[in-house]
């Protein structure tokens, strides 16, 4: 009888587990029918053919976000000699790329790309991040515990960390000027400062049309691709380039799936493991030790 009980118990728990995984699979299938971003999300189309590397956008960002004074003037173009990354003191930086066979270098402004389905948001266990309907990926620094998981999760290596803060280091990144501009329907400071409209601000869906139109009108000038239209599920900031994207510092191996979809299956198992496994193994333990207990009782009776 005892053996039967154990077998039944095991069968039952296995069936339960299988059912749970089937249910979670079907839920996944629905979710992966792609969110595709908020319908009226705003975005920026960065046209590398127009950028001349003047760094006005960096200066505008510094002023708008009240960032600390830079180490060098913003009109000092010697900083372009080495590749830079975003930092706690600079939410956007311009880098220069020499293109083989072209007379002129290309310049690429980097900042948070404001993904439709942000990996930073998914990875944040205190839910500090929000993707707003306007398209911005913002975060609440008062909630941030400084774990830096989002820095690892971001496919573009954008979130920076305030290492200089001893007591309360937090994440620092571009927020699309959400608080001061975007939520009032105004373009971010960098866009407004750009002298050559290398940055075009508008509804994301319109920018894709504009990008395709530019490619169509000047097929010899542009690569036939809008970087960010589909990459990692689509981003609010997108790029046009006259050189192959891998020559101007873009990661062209990111694929079109949101980063979230790579971890979704695993993450749905986590609550199951946490709830079912303790009961399951406690059951195993009780069953396995039951004989011993009985034997002990029998011994003590003797």
């Amino acid at each position, binding site marked *: 009888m005892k053996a039967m009980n154990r077998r039944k118990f095991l069968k039952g728990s296995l069936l339960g587990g299988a059912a749970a995984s089937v249910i979670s699979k079907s839920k996944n299938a629905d979710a992966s029918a792609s969110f595709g971003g908020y319908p009226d999300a705003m975005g920026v189309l960065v046209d590398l053919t127009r950028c001349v590397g003047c760094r006005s956008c960096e200066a505008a960002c510094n002023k708008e976000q009240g960032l600390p004074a830079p180490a060098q*003037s913003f009109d000092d173009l010697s900083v372009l000699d080495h590749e830079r990354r975003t930092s*706690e003191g600079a939410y956007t930086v311009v880098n220069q790329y020499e293109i083989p066979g072209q007379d002129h270098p290309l310049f690429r402004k980097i900042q948070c790309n404001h993904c439709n389905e942000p990996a930073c948001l998914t990875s944040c266990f205190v839910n500090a991040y929000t993707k707003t309907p306007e398209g911005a990926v913002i975060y609440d620094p008062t909630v941030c515990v400084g774990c830096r998981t989002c820095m690892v999760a971001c496919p573009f290596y954008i979130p920076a960390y305030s290492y200089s803060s001893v007591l309360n280091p937090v994440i620092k990144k571009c927020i699309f000027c959400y608080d001061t501009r975007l939520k009032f329907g105004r373009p971010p400071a960098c866009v407004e400062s*750009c002298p050559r409209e290398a940055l075009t601000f508008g509804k994301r869906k319109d920018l894709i049309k504009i990008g395709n139109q530019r490619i169509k009108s000047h097929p010899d000038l542009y690569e036939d691709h809008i970087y960010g239209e589909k990459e990692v599920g689509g981003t609010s900031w997108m790029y046009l380039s006259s050189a192959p994207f891998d020559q101007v510092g873009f990661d062209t191996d990111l694929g079109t799936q949101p980063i979230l979809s790579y971890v979704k299956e695993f993450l749905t198992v986590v609550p199951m493991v946490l709830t079912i496994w303790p009961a399951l193994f406690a059951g195993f333990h009780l069953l396995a030790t039951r004989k011993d207990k009985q034997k002990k009782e029998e011994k003590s009776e003797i």
Partner: protein
Amino acid sequence: MEHIQKYLYGAVLVSLLCFSPLQNFAVAGDGPDEVEIDSLAQLYEPVYFDHAMHEEVTDSNCAVCHHHTLGTQIEDENCIRCHAESSATDEIACQECHASNRFEADYLNKIDADNTLYHRDKVGLKAAYHIRCMNCHEEMGVANGCQDCHSRTDAGDKFFHSGSYTPPESDKPAGGGH
């Protein structure tokens, strides 16, 4: 200064009406001698654009900068599709077509609401100047840096942390850590 500019354009129009009964396009020399451009006037001093000199440089081909708006024959095949027969327009100055509020909600909504509009990707005023001026300057091999055309104001120096606002020398690498 803006009214002077308008007066100048008025003068262009009047001269068009008076002196060209047989031709519907403007000719070089009708344009203003100088145009004050002050749309960036916070960070930079206004630019005094030598219109007369540029007429010479472009061999009086107004279309180099003014597209088809002066009735000049245009060469761009894409433009010719619609504008082969276009005559001179009422709007000639850059600012009359290229919006200074290119990315403000009012402008974006207006574009959004008009399904028939072809020129949806028309650059704003600031970009129209810079793209036209700088691309040509590069081709001609003439001065093309920011301050070759603009002298910066004190507010501009502050904005760029330059001039008297230049940060002190530091041995830290630019940009700092990530």
